[in-house]
């Protein structure tokens, strides 16, 4: 028993940094990566070129308000099914902005959602809520 413990300890000491350890530097980097995407999301949210008619998301949604990301996925009666936030973002791009929809994994779509969620941080998750 004792021998096994010593052996294990020696192995751990010899091993490189393990998977579940991270440093302040890691935290800073990850936060910076996230905030960079939030910033790109705000740029897309206020970009007259996102659609075709110069209308921007922030025109109707100052600070991303009234997007309530915490309520998705939820039933949309007009679609007749449960929809995700990115689908509603595309609905807005196609209708008020008269533009072309983005792929779900388009970096701009991810950035838009990062920005919307950041502006709504702290709200309790309420999936399905109307």
């Amino acid at each position, binding site marked *: 028993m004792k021998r096994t413990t010593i052996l294990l300890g020696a192995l751990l000491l010899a091993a490189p940094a393990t998977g579940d350890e991270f440093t302040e530097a890691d935290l800073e980097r990850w936060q910076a990566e996230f905030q960079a995407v939030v910033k790109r999301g705000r740029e897309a949210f*206020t970009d007259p070129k996102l659609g075709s*008619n*110069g*209308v921007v998301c*922030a*025109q*109707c*949604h*100052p*600070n*991303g*308000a*009234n997007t*309530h990301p915490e*309520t998705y996925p939820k039933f949309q009666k*007009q679609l007749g099914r449960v929809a995700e936030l990115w689908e*509603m973002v595309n*609905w*807005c791009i196609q*209708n*008020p902005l*008269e533009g072309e929809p983005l792929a779900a994994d388009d970096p701009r779509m991810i950035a838009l959602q990062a920005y919307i969620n950041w*502006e*709504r*941080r*702290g*709200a309790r998750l*309420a999936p399905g*809520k*109307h």
Partner: protein
Amino acid sequence: MNTLSRRSFLKRGAGAAVGGLLPLSLVEVAFADKSRNFTFAYISDSHIQHIKGNKFVRNWDRGLIRAVAETNLMDPKPDFVMYGGDLAQLGTRAELDHGLDLLGALRPRTRFVMGEHDYYLDLGEYWSKLLGPQWYSFDHKGVHFVVLNSILTYDKWINKWSTPEERMNVMAGLDNPLGSPFMVGAAQRAWLKKDLAKVSKDTPVVVFSHSPLQKIYKGWNFWTEDAEQVQALLKPFKKVTVFYGHVHQIQYNQIGNISFYSAMATAWPWPYPGTYNQKPSHLPKLTVEMNRADPFFERDATGWQFIDVWSGRATVHYSLPENAPRTVAYNARTGRPEDTRYQNKRIPPQKHY
């Protein structure tokens, strides 16, 4: 109630011509001296937005066209129309010209309030050339009306931008942190003081501004920096009503002797500031919020107003094309504006989050 009180604003037969669903409102004329009662229409915040050439954003055009068509169908006819500001989106000549062209179909006389979207490209030069002074007063059937330009700001901010377009674009972003608070300013307050000096304290006073002459939420300029100073000038009068645009939503309030009513936009609705959960805001507690907008209906939560002025007080009929209309009337018993239907009985769509 007299026969007038039972008559709808719109001729039903004529109304069918503009497309089925029309927001009909009953005129509620509750006071004795009928000869002093009158109605006016109040249209605001159309944000006519130029794309290029002869193309404009269709959605915003449609809102204004509909408001104009229904105003022309009002019965009894409004004595005049007030346009509450933000006719343009980015203050260009093309936008102001096109907006005025659409408003040209209005039959009653139209007067105008300056909005920040009309102003910050050329500091109101083209607007003034077309429409005249940016602040003025007039009298109508015993009521003293005052129009203010409440969207002025600090000279230092005005002069800090490299181009007029840059300045306009920053001010056009409601939530742009580089914007600047609105104000009436000292020169205009001095004018107002002088203008009101000749008005009897019993005369009802009605003021129009673009931004609220009260402080609701600074982050979106639902705010006027010198609101208290303007309120103080209005304080000696028995009956004061302030109408404002800018907020794209139903708000009403009572501060001392002053009743406040906002206008909806014909272009698009805005969320209530309380829905932005990162900052505190001060929506008047009295306000029963308008129904949450359904994005799938283009005109939902947009609208325009028909206003009865009776005994110097107002009843505001908010016409919502995709919803039941709202009526907010001054309640003489409680001394404040109240929703005639929802004040004490709210419905689920009036909850915002």
